[in-house]
């Protein structure tokens, strides 16, 4: 979706991975937010960057809850020395591309995905079949 702004890990850099699965229910989104804040704190992100990550994480979960029929949300956090990448599985969901549009007037449609694109440095969606796939969001330190 949006292009990288540079600074993502080299091919040789080893990544550390954390996996999380939460019930696909609104009351669990805060757990994903707290988790990403804890992980981001291990990297030299600014406070503002961490707030951006929390919001993008929550928007991704909210999107999956609304669009997917799955009972749980699976996500993987990959950390390099200077970036954090989040992979959120959205099996059974509609394509986020269909939901993306710049908010105009008082429309709320596509607001969540729009925010993800605005707050993260790199956003990508890999398709799996007709519906669903993986939403991949990356934020780099100091980008």
């Amino acid at each position, binding site marked *: 979706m949006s292009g990288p702004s540079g600074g993502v890990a080299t091919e040789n850099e080893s990544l550390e991975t954390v996996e999380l699965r939460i019930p696909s229910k609104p009351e669990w*989104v*805060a757990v994903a937010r707290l988790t990403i804040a804890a992980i981001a704190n291990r990297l030299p992100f600014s406070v503002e960057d961490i707030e951006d990550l929390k919001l993008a994480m929550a928007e991704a979960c*909210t999107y999956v809850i609304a669009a997917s029929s799955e009972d749980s949300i699976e996500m993987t956090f990959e950390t390099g020395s200077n970036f954090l990448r989040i992979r959120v599985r959205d099996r059974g969901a509609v394509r986020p591309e269909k939901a993306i549009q710049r908010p105009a007037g*008082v429309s*709320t449609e596509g*607001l*969540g995905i*729009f925010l993800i694109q605005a707050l993260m440095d790199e956003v990508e969606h890999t398709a799996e079949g007709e519906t669903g796939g993986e939403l991949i969001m990356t934020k780099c330190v100091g980008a």
Partner: protein
Amino acid sequence: MDIKVNVRETGSDAYVVELGGEIDVYTSPKVKDAITELIDQGHYNLVISLEKVRYIDSTGLGVLIGGLKRVREHGGSVNLVCTNPQIRKIFDITGLVKIFGIFDDEQTAQKALV
């Protein structure tokens, strides 16, 4: 996770909705209920204070936009009070600064109601 909603009359035909905590997909229905109740009672000039809000996401924004839409149908308006730079940033990014009146304090927000 917490959300606090406090509604009070100002004495000048306007109501202040004071929100506190985190407004997300889980807590936003409570905010929506409070705003809807006021509008259903015929109160169309609202000041919504986000001064004690630590976090808001697109569902929270959606509730505010929904409230604005409804009061405008009756010639009313919604002004926001917000000084938290992280939350103001979200209104900037989404272009909602052009839709809402956003003020630094409650008094100015009240005075600016149409």
